[in-house]
């Protein structure tokens, strides 16, 4: 499909990640009141879908992924009833979250769920996808670290998730590694095999500054749902900055239904002041995008670097070389220690 084809009149659903992926950037320390404030502002700006959970989703509270200030249930019970038009979604990664937690999230008002697996492991999700459908939830299959699988491989994985009941399939650039041609090839391969009624989404990270270009490339090939976060509050260099993306959509005639100026105000007045560090492309987050490393590893690597005296960039590059994937945050400290031993900075006991 040619890049100059007009997208005028195309309808795209925006899905905000500030209160889920953004939890990573906040080390899971967003309070209930702050969550309600952000969600209400997004709701008022017309964002139709808002994700709310621990950064690692349901079941995420752990030593591995950090403990949030409150339980997922507390967040959902506070946010869901206050939404005037927005639907609230949650994230579930099989192996971490379970169906019990999904039931509980549904009881608290969540009506959409993103069920995420690594891009080659779709068959770890059949029971969760089927259960989400049974609950009547809008059910999304989310293929993470999609740069590590071929377009054909992803198409086959997506088809499998569709067969379990997923209604929308995502190409997920967890490492912010992909370039527009990579996205185009993957979305097109998925589009070619899925039923016409099954939707396609794209979730980007801005580690190479490609979040917006990649999202547009996805839409050109048939995606109709785009994840982003206002002011880019998310792991790594953040997600596709949603207000910037909304502005680009408006210029291109893509219909999102959001109020651009209100979204800009949310970014400037609420999200940016919340940031503990400026979420941007810097030396370490650029390393993620360049080396193809899971964006959430960023802050963990910085912590391990401080502790063991090995530069975060070295740790991240080594994690990429060892092909570590989302969920293996324990391997960050392990890798830092192994590097420190090799460099004579640390001694082992065994």
């Amino acid at each position, binding site marked *: 499909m040619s890049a100059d084809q007009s997208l005028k009149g195309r309808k795209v659903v925006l899905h905000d990640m500030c209160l889920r992926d953004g939890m990573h950037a906040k080390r899971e320390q967003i309070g209930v009141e702050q969550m309600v404030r952000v969600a209400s502002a997004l709701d008022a700006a017309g964002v139709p879908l808002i994700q709310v959970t621990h950064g690692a989703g349901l079941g995420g509270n752990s030593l591995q992924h950090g403990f949030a200030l409150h339980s997922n249930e507390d967040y959902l019970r506070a946010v869901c009833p206050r939404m005037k038009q927005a639907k609230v979604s949650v994230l579930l990664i099989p192996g971490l979250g379970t169906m019990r937690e999904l039931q509980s999230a549904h009881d608290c008002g969540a009506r959409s769920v993103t069920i995420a697996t690594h891009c080659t492991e779709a068959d770890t999700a059949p029971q969760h996808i089927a259960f989400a459908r049974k609950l009547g939830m809008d059910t999304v299959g989310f293929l993470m670290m999609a740069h590590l699988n071929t377009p054909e491989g992803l198409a086959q994985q997506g088809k499998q998730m569709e067969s379990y009941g997923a209604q929308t399939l995502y190409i997920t650039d967890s490492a912010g590694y992909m370039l527009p041609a990579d996205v185009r090839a993957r979305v097109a391969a998925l589009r070619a095999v899925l039923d016409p009624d099954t939707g396609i989404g794209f979730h980007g990270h801005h580690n190479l500054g490609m979040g917006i270009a990649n999202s547009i490339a996805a839409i050109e090939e048939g995606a109709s749902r785009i994840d982003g976060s206002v002011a880019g509050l998310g792991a790594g260099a953040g997600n596709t900055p949603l207000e910037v993306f909304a502005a680009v959509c408006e210029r291109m005639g893509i219909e999102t239904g959001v109020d651009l100026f209100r979204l800009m105000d949310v970014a400037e007045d609420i999200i940016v002041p919340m940031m503990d560090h400026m979420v941007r492309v810097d030396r370490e987050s650029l390393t993620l995008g360049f080396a193809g490393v899971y964006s959430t590893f960023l802050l963990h690597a910085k912590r391990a670097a401080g502790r063991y005296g090995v530069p975060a960039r070295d740790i991240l590059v080594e994690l990429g070389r060892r092909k570590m994937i989302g969920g293996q945050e324990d391997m960050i400290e392990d890798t830092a*220690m192994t590097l420190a031993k090799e460099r004579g900075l640390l001694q082992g006991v065994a």
Partner: protein
Amino acid sequence: MAKIRCALIGSGNIGTDLIYKLKRSEVLEPVWMVGIDPASEGLARASELGLKTTAAGVDGLLPHVIEDGVQIAFDATSAYVHAENSRKLNALGVMMIDLTPAAIGPLCVPPVNLRAHMDRVEMNVNMISCAGQATIPIVHAVSRIQSVEYAEIIASLSSRSVGPGTRANLDEFTYTTSDAICRVGGARRGKALAIINPADPPMIMRNTIYCLTDEAPDEARITESILAMIREVQSYVPGYRLVNGPVFHERKVSVFMEVAGLGDYLPRYAGNLDIMTAAATRTAEMFAQELLAGRIELKPLETA
């Protein structure tokens, strides 16, 4: 020397690997393998290795249990069919070693509680999960020194070593392992996380164990206890190895382990397969030694 005759139920990765482990045993002899798919590679392999096979499920085995003197059965099917398999075989006096997450019998981690199960002549013991076998010894090594408020384990498995049964039932894996971290490991609360990594060449199984102790950890005694436990596990899983740690940070104790397999059925990266089948074999051998010495006797279980 006489051996105790065994049946293997389930012809997937675990059942097939068990053939090799049992064939090396001085007290166990695998005689039957039970599957449900006549075309399965596991059944063909079993047949080549001299076992009798049936593709008619457990019902295909039942008529032969008495005449072939089967006394111990390993169930590597799924949590959903295990209870029925166990009921049928227990009724014939066959002791069950459950490698599914069903956990209808007591949970067994050999270096922690196998002796106690044998003293009670349990007719069904559950092996929890590969992650449980790889991590609960470490949790116990900490909790026997001082009380553990919370323990969390992360198991990273190579994609090629994880069969369809485990994949389709990850929640059961999580629940059973979390529960065992408390009941066998001795932590008050437990959580288990599983990651399936498709890297090629495949990564060797990794396990990370975090324990939060109630009081500041006694570093020297905990380290000594962990190292002693690792040696004990190494006696039946030679590839069980400490990579990093223990690391002490406030009340948190972190231990980073690796498990390389023996490379019997799947290559060495599949330590998860190995530690499960090795623990099951170890359990069966202990029962077999007692049976052969006449110190315990298996009796048919009457069921309602």
